């Protein structure tokens, strides 16, 4: 493999991995803040236990999100130096603002929240978890505005002298509709991910008749939040799709395997392609639906990949402008199917909470739903990023022109193998701790460690 392919592979691996942890951080922080606030208002010990219990899980997850985030910030320069030169005038700004506005806030106040209990007034301690939640979500905003610019560049000119893109309108960058649509979609996905973790873990304990009262509070809260959030994810995604239809027609056509331009465009239920991943053998389609999804109108024209390819060749010169359709097509279908499934599940869970669901047999299977948001979130990013291929910045810079020219294949294999090993070890430790703290339950979370084998170490409480 060449350095472009390897650099893409590494970026994909590290980014998808990083984003396994981010949505949970984004969503779970609000739940912890909410339960701690309820305790502050009601003095009900149950809420204190809930804040502590979900807080522990939040911390175990948060740590990996933070450390893998360092790689994210560094690898633009490390692996994509020509990209960094070309767009740094624009793209660097949201990254720097993210650090100044969000990273400092979440890290500093998380430290205060963990260590500050009983050292600072309770109100300040409560405020600090809210600031952690606000900080992490603000960080999502700025990185998504940065990514939004790569999908839909705004507020820039190409400087003819030095041949790079330069910022001329910061306001346009900060209000880029693409970035804000991503933000809507992502924050809602974060709430959904947190809701599904809470639903799954709560069901685990309720089914085992442990702390039923506490976990019924959690289950009920998470099914309400999960239903609202997954609905917002759906509408955010839909709006995103319509914006994509206008601004990235190739990506839109590619995720639908829509080859030929048509009015009353059909929506593909299933398409079987050949081994190139870019040709169709057989498909099943419903007419009109794709047009409706694209522009709320059953007969609007949806351009196909063949026509856009010809158009782009005329505009940008020869080359293959069609993304790997087999990936975008299936990633989209996985994401959407799971998204709809999550809406349906949360609606059912919410209905169930009106009855005596704690004794229901199906509760045994609920913990498996924890996996759903992970699959949907990863698929979503894979289709977003791979759907933009061959562009790094839509219409401005191709992926092959963005890579660091000084790197060797050996450099890249060293880092890919290194990251994979370290990230693998992190995942093992994280899953081990998560399982341990989940099983130990809320009473144990009140103590510093859930281990109860004083002979093992000198410092048990």
């Amino acid at each position, binding site marked *: 493999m060449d350095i472009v392919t390897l650099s893409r592979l590494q970026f994909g691996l590290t980014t998808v991995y990083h984003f396994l942890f981010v949505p949970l951080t984004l969503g779970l922080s609000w739940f912890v803040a909410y339960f701690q606030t309820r305790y502050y208002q009601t003095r009900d010990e149950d809420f204190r236990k809930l804040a502590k219990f979900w807080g522990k899980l939040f911390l175990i997850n948060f740590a990996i999100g933070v450390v893998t985030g360092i790689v994210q910030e560094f690898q633009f320069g490390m692996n994509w130096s020509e990209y960094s030169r070309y767009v740094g005038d*624009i793209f660097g700004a949201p990254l720097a603002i993210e650090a100044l506005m969000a990273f400092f806030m979440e890290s500093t106040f998380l430290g205060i929240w963990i260590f500050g209990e009983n050292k600072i007034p309770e109100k300040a301690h409560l405020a600090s978890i809210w600031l952690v939640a606000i900080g992490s979500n603000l960080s999502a905003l700025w990185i998504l505005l940065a990514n939004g610019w790569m999908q839909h560049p705004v507020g820039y000119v190409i400087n003819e002298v030095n041949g790079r893109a330069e910022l001329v309108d910061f306001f346009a960058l900060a209000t880029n509709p693409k970035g804000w649509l991503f933000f809507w979609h992502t924050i809602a996905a974060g709430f959904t991910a947190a809701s599904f973790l809470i639903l799954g873990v709560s069901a685990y304990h309720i089914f085992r008749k442990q702390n039923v009262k506490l976990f019924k509070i959690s289950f009920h809260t998470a099914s309400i939040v999960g239903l609202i959030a997954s609905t917002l994810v759906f509408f955010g995604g839909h709006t995103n799709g319509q914006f994509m239809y206008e601004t990235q027609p190739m990506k839109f056509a590619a995720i639908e395997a829509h080859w030929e331009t048509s009015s009353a465009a059909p929506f593909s239920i299933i398409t079987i392609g050949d081994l190139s991943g870019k040709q169709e053998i057989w498909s099943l389609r419903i007419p009109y639906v794709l047009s409706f999804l694209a522009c709320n109108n059953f007969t609007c024209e949806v351009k196909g990949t063949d026509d856009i390819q010809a158009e782009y060749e005329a505009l940008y010169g020869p080359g293959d402008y069609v993304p790997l359709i087999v990936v975008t097509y299936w990633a989209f279908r996985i994401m959407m199917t799971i998204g709809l499934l999550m809406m349906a599940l949360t609606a059912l869970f919410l209905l169930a909470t009106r009855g005596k669901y704690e004794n229901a047999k199906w509760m045994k299977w609920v913990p498996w739903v924890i996996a759903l948001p992970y699959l949907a979130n990863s698929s979503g990013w894979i289709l977003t990023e791979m759907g933009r291929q061959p562009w790094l910045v839509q219409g401005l810079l191709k992926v092959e022109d963005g890579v660091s020219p000084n790197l060797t294949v050996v450099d890249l294999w060293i880092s890919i193998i290194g990251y994979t090993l370290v990230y693998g070890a992190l995942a093992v430790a994280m899953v081990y701790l998560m399982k341990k703290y989940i099983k130990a339950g809320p009473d144990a979370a009140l103590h510093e*460690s859930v281990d109860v084998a004083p002979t093992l170490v000198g410092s048990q409480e």
Partner: protein
Amino acid sequence: MSYELLQTIWFILIAVLWIVFFILEGFDFGVGMLLPFLGKKDEERRAIINAIGPTWDGNEVWLLTAGGATFAAFPHWYATMFSGFYLALFLLVIGLIIRGISFEYRSKDANPKWRHTFDWMISIGSFICALLLGTAFTNLAHGLPINADMIYTGNLFTLLNPYSLLGGVTMVAVFLLYGATFLTLKLEGELRERAREFSKNLYVLAAIVVVLLAFFTYTSTDITTKIGINPGFTPLATIVVILVTTFFINRKMEGWAFLSVATHILLTQVSFFTLMFPRVMISNLNPEWSLTIYNASSSQYTLGVMSIVALIFVPIILAYQGWAYYIFRKRISTDKKTLVY
């Protein structure tokens, strides 16, 4: 504001970000490296981690901000440095990852093997970070093979020249001393005295390598042509400050000892950035090919926007980080009831 003035301001601002990072995270790295050597029992190690626990993560953000600000203000500097130092930065990132995760995970399981492993990962991770950052900074002063297209043409071994390795060792030694003086200031009882003994020994190592590094800076950088044989006040003060630290350590003036190492780090960085200015990456193939604040920077508009952003947020950050230090100003005892985690 004129373009040149903005470029100078941003050079200074990025220098400030690095300086604050080294002053704050420097003792965190030192404490991390010392952890398994200084702490024998589990609660001792926990007390040591508690001394930096609430603030280390916030301190590390200064590094991320320095990276982000370099990207925003000097994209070519960011691109050339980060791609040029590829494997070194890969190792730095691994160091930061294993250290960061270990602070959070080490006390979440009582198995002594688990804790022992993470304690050593904190130590090794901190060591890797200090060594590589020191090596990287001395390489910047030393000059690097950068071609006319601003592209680094060396490899990892180019970075491992004796002068830069000495720079790496110096940063390790100074941070070890810094960490030991910090712990003398933050801990109580026997552990505090042990940290004081460590700082006495580490002082000797730090003083020797600092003087050596200063000497070799004459032979390995262009200081004589750029500044002259007489380096001026700041570099000389850098040496003096590290030399007088022994006085404070021996007199048990631990606050002063800590402050004097901090001042040494501050002055070292000021000397470094003065030597670099207005260059940001020195080409040793051809001085014309060096990256400077003029040919590596963002547009005037972007620098202007970022100045406003920095003007708003940096004071706020300093205020709440200062508050965090104020909250956790008390000494840490090894009494289990007061330890967190």
